């Protein structure tokens, strides 16, 4: 079971989901994540699961709603335009407190945009996206192996918090071939789901709903959701500090960009510059504290994103003016090279001197 397999990120995510007990997948084709649905279409029947190609992402997300409400581990995947179509459903899923996993392999937008990698759905993923007060938990892998581990974790977190969890990647993460291993958890997490819809046999009926016309009741529910999310904020912050102990300059990046930043850091260190990386793994909850602590010691933080500047707002919020926050981006499907990051850091280093 633990021998290494050479797999593309998308397929690795699909296999990880199956091994995490996912038994239903609903989706609609869109590049660059088609391999997930294609893999599920033959893999799920092998384990007695259900793969269904829906008529749209709108239908997909409500099929997820139905299957999650029926008590199974369920997943959908898409890319930016399709994820936009799902926003209504994600809001309903959050409101009904249904556990599910949603993969977004981001492509450049807005609109139809392009099919090349992007990180321009950060706001949509981490701040709500649909209407109403809610958050998904958002995990951002930077390697295929991490995609496997985080996908497995995502199903546990979804069950634990009864909340949708998003795996946020991009075309690079999805297409990259890497050796991966699937380690099933020693103690698989089994959630008690007494609220599911299975037919009202020998028990009062269960109702999965989101309409609460009495504001007194809805406020209670909203506050309970707030409390639940605060609990997740307390327990589920994940990040990787990479060579930051002695760093004078810290790069902040996630996913594909973080990978590239690691290469840049090697080059910069060879040039004698002390540079590190603080890599958020959970984008919601965001590692505010880790950045705040870094800002106590480090004067310059360089945020690199494939967006016009989205995560940088959270970094600024975290450092609260204590260090200078620089920003570098490539957008529209262009991926920053390590040379560009090296040059950007050298520029900052000169300014500091």
């Amino acid at each position, binding site marked *: 079971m633990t021998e290494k397999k050479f797999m593309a990120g998308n397929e690795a995510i699909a296999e990880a989901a199956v091994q995490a007990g996912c*038994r*239903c997948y*609903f989706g609609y084709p869109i590049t660059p994540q088609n391999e997930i649905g294609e893999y599920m279409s033959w893999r799920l029947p092998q384990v007695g699961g*259900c793969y*269904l190609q*829906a*008529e*749209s992402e*709108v*239908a*997909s997300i*409500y*099929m*997820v*709603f*139905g*299957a*999650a*409400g*029926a*008590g*199974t581990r*369920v997943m959908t995947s898409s890319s930016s335009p399709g994820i936009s179509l799902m926003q*209504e*459903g994600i809001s*309903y899923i959050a409101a009904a407190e249904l556990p599910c996993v949603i993969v977004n392999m981001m492509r450049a937008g807005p609109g139809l945009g392009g099919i090349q990698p992007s990180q321009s759905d950060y706001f949509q993923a981490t701040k709500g996206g649909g209407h109403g007060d809610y958050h998904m938990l958002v995990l951002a892998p930077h390697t295929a192996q991490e995609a496997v581990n985080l996908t497995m974790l995502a199903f546990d977190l979804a069950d634990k918090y009864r909340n949708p969890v998003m795996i946020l990647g991009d075309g690079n993460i999805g297409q990259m071939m890497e050796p991966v291993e699937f380690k099933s958890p020693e103690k698989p997490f089994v959630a008690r789901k007494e609220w599911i*819809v*299975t*037919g*009202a*046999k*020998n028990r009062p*009926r*269960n*109702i*999965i*709903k*989101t*309409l609460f016309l009495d504001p007194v009741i809805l406020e209670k529910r909203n506050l309970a959701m707030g409390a639940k999310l605060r609990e997740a904020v307390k327990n589920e912050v994940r990040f990787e500090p990479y060579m930051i102990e002695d760093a004078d300059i810290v790069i902040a990046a996630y996913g594909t960009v973080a990978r590239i930043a690691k290469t840049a850091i090697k080059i910069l260190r060879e040039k004698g510059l002390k540079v590190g990386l603080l890599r958020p793994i959970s984008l919601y909850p965001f590692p505010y504290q880790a950045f705040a602590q870094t800002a106590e010691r480090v004067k310059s933080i360089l945020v690199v994103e494939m967006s016009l500047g989205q995560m940088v707002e959270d970094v600024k919020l975290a450092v609260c003016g204590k260090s200078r926050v620089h920003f570098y981006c490539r957008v529209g499907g262009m991926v920053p090279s390590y040379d560009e990051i090296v040059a950007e850091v050298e520029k900052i280093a000169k300014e500091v001197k």
Partner: protein
Amino acid sequence: MEMEMVSGRPKTLLPVPTHYCPGCGHGVIHRLVAEVIDGLGIREKTVVVAPVGCAVLLYNYFDVDAYEAAHGRAPAIATGCKRVNPELVVFTYQGDGDFAAIGTAEAVHVAARGEKITTIFVNNAVYGMTGGQMAPTTLLGQKTTTTTSGRASETAGFPIRMSEMIATLPGAAYVARVSVSSPKNVAQAKMAVRKAFETQIKGLGYSLVEFLSQCPTNWHMTPVESVRWVEEQMVPYYPLGELKVPKEEY
């Protein structure tokens, strides 16, 4: 044959007053569906997906497990549920805005897939819950709050016959249009609902029962007038009867 209630409240309906207006078709339709569920003895394995519309609160009345959908998405939710638990009897209950406008894609594709679920489609030719705006099923010339001088095809298009459309799909096994405008029609309606559920239970495919239903409130009529309006205005455009029955019945 199993025991069936002929009078009195069906077991599947909870003993609570409903929020429907006097003379509204929803209440009668609820009762018919509940009687069929009782008759088939399937209450404990039945799941209803409520729509957005006047019937959004129907889970307050039906003593079965339930989902409340977003506007138009009930067939997708029913699909997700049924695929997880094929032994359940799953039905959606949807108005004409829900089924024939915002949810048309889901309505067509649940039938195209031959999903083994049942839809109770309540066509009252208006948007009831939001105050009587034009529905996709509003008749030509019919006055609503958004067609104040009557629906004109030049600007508002033509009323849509969902049952005829769905009946063309191979995945749809049973399709019928019924009304609750007379005791005879009520009896036929009940038979249609029963056949629709049986179609699902036998695994023959998708089943749809379209009810022509009264909305006295937004039609600005008395209950008696609205029943007459169904027969005189709606039935000529939306003919009653079975449009499709499962092959095994031929």
